[in-house]
């Protein structure tokens, strides 16, 4: 039999067993394991042991001593790609920072190390020091140092949180702001709207509560504003001549432009279909969460770097995609998800525009001042942040009563819990375990909605309990306006017919993990058109990735 090269990911008991088997069949085996030692000394789960043979694992010795097995412990599989039946793997063996050939196991380093951390290998049962051995018989001494603190690692754009929070503690607010702007051009806006995954990861939560990272970011942005300081974003002396087009002035497009301008690109044009910048930040996030004036200022700072923003210019109508690709050296698509999905219930099509307004349109028209004055009752259907935003906007507009209908309970609601609480606090009426059945109308306009009560049944594929209608529990709510807020999708009509840019079955673009490039060289994408409707900071991350990809692409031409 021909010798094959086999990669085993994971050096636990299953990995060691597979390695022994593959090596025994004459293959060349490489094991990649995250921890500094293989971990196959486990108690069996398929036979009853005696006290003497419980931790014995003959396969482990076989694997350790086999000339056909290469063991890469303390290593990460960074990337794996399939090509022509082969798998190309990028592996990084982390530095132990201890030369174990010199180490004499005296443990002096362990005694002086001031850092105590949970020991993952012992299931968090005990603590280890930052310098430690891993397993008294098989582990090597190593110094454990993460690339980044957990907050920075969790942040999609890897903001250096520890540094800027430290600078705030020292009272150096503007230095902190400069630290943030090193990676993020919209600190005031993101500092208001971000659902802050960094705080969810923050280690302080194990002591009491996480650090209020997001609001601290907002604080330093507000300091600059309060002190009337006009920062100038610097661009380098050396300029690049290439022309770059960006579709959409949302968080991803703006960040992409910002990063490219900082690299020295001076011919950047953003095409924006709306008369305002910011994308969903302007037309999706309501004013009471993010004042437009503040957003406008952050956009103006980016524009002042020499980025041209062409408003009221819809790609596909005012300029075709083909023309754009001819006129520009690279194109970045950051068009976002601005299409509200439908309810799919009777009466919806009939009354479309006559009282039925999807949440994206509702929020946009409100933000642009295009909605008629509020009258009567408003029903919002859905449980996401867009539903809460629509309801709180409706409540502010002055609807008599504002309802949110959600088919599961508060516990399952995908919206941020603090937003749900705020809506309830303001007087929005939340009806849980209720679903729409039919839109009612008088032939000209919506008059109400027939609903049905639900109960929770067995868990579905998402792990949440599936709501089941309760027979005979129908009821009616009178309403003038009904806002379905289910989910948002992309609108890729601007690509035109016969587009060669590949679109997947979610109607989003598949892009290269590292460069953000689509299947067409020179065309990049990022933000919600790649991820589907997602949070702003992830769109920013998409814009940053593409900026690096565009630079790489243009410089290597």
């Amino acid at each position, binding site marked *: 039999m021909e010798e*094959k090269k086999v990669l085993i990911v*994971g050096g636990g008991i299953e990995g060691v067993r*597979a390695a022994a088997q593959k090596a025994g069949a004459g293959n060349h085996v490489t094991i990649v394991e995250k921890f500094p030692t293989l971990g196959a000394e486990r108690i069996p789960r398929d036979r*009853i042991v005696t*006290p003497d043979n419980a931790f014995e694992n003959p396969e482990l010795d076989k694997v350790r001593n086999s000339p056909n097995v290469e063991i890469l412990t303390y290593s990460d599989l960074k990337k794996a790609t399939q090509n022509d039946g082969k798998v190309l793997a990028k592996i990084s063996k982390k530095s132990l920072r201890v030369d174990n050939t*010199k180490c*004499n196991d005296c443990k002096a380093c362990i005694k002086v190390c001031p850092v105590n951390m949970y020991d993952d290998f012992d299931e968090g049962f005990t603590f280890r020091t930052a310098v430690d051995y891993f397993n*008294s018989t098989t582990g090597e001494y190593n110094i454990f140092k*993460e690339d980044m603190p957990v907050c920075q690692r969790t942040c999609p754009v890897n903001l250096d949180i520890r540094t800027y929070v430290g600078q705030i503690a020292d009272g150096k607010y503007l230095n902190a702001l400069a630290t943030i702007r090193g990676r993020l051009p919209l600190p005031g806006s993101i500092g208001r709207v971000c659902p802050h995954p960094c705080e969810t990861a923050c280690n302080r939560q194990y002591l009491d509560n996480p650090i209020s990272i997001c609001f601290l970011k907002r*604080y330093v942005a507000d300091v600059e504003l309060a002190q009337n300081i006009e920062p100038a974003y610097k661009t380098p002396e050396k300029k690049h001549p290439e022309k770059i087009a960006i579709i959409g002035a949302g968080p991803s497009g703006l960040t992409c432009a910002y990063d490219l301008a900082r690299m020295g690109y001076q011919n950047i044009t953003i095409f924006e279909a709306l008369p305002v910048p910011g994308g969903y930040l302007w037309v999706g996030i309501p004013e009471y969460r993010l004042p437009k004036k503040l957003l406008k200022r952050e956009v103006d700072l980016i524009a002042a770097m020499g980025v041209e923003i062409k408003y009221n210019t819809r790609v596909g109508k005012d300029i075709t995609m083909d023309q754009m690709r001819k006129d520009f050296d690279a194109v970045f698509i950051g068009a976002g998800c601005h299409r509200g999905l439908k309810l799919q219930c009777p009466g919806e099509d009939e009354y479309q525009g006559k009282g039925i307004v999807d949440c994206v349109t509702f929020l946009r028209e409100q933000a642009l001042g295009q909605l008629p004055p509020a009258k009567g009752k408003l029903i919002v259907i859905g449980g996401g942040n867009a539903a809460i935003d629509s309801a709180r906007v409706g409540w502010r507009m002055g609807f008599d009563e504002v309802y949110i209908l959600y088919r599961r309970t508060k516990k399952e609601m995908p919206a941020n819990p603090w937003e749900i609480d705020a809506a309830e606090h303001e007087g929005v009426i939340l009806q849980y375990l209720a679903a729409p059945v039919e839109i009612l109308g008088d032939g000209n306009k919506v008059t109400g909605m027939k609903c049905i009560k639900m109960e929770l049944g067995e868990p579905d594929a998402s792990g949440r309990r599936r709501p089941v209608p309760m027979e005979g529990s129908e009821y009616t709510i009178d309403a003038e306006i009904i806002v379905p807020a289910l989910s948002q999708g992309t609108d890729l009509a601007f690509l035109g017919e016969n587009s060669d840019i590949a679109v997947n079955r979610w109607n989003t673009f598949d892009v290269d993990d590292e460069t953000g490039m689509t299947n067409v060289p020179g065309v990049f994408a990022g933000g919600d058109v790649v991820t589907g409707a997602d949070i702003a900071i992830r769109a920013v991350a998409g814009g940053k990735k593409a900026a690096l990809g565009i630079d790489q692409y243009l410089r290597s031409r």
Partner: protein
Amino acid sequence: MIYEKNRRYIIPFDDVPADRAVMPEISVDERRGNFTEVETGFPEDVAVNEAKRCLSCRRCLGCALCWAECKPEAIDFGIKPREMELTFDEVVITRGQDNAFEKINAQLGFGNYADVITDLQFERMLSPTGPTDGLVVSPHNGEIPKKVAIIQGNVKGGDDHLLSSAVLGVNEAILAINRVNDLEVNLISPLCQAFKDKFSDDAKKVAGLTIIEATPESVERPQEGGPLTLTYSQNGGSKKDDFDMVVVLTKPKIAPEVAALGKKLNQDVI
């Protein structure tokens, strides 16, 4: 593995403010009919105090104390990682050593009581290379337990799970009984037919182990410093018993990043 130092993880310094700052807001009455920003931002002293709460986490701090202490000069902060690009004909993706597990019934006290531990933690405790060198001690008070319950944490985990976890429970009981004189172990789990067919007879021969076919309901410590009280339901009735330590059997779960890799390369994770 006892170090000559105070093994505390986080020292609550007096000068570090403890409570997370609350964002001030305008009142609900001020919100109706306008779009004024609701959250008004931190005042300066609140922001600075909040920032001071940050623990500045990192693992190695780079203090170089170990480097100064190391006589054979083995510590070298400059050792670089080794980057490789390799090509393979075949890939096998395994769960690895992350040992993630499905959510445990919250009523069973895991996370609330230090002496309610997982089967994985118990395995480390029983291992000669583990944190206690194989000694069985209660993490709650450091004493050697006299009576231990091994209970099922995922009663609806399916027959395969009930089988493999019950076998693991029996094995852990055998090891623990071997280490501690006169230790009494109760294994409390709904048993699947395969376990009864294949392993019940052998398990019954283990002196000190009692297998109870029942569903664990809750674990509480009614009295500070006292034993844990386990409530379990059996044949429609409810029973209570006291234990010095409780081990929860967990259902293994594949870590999301491993599952994503499997999906990407079109491979089952083993």
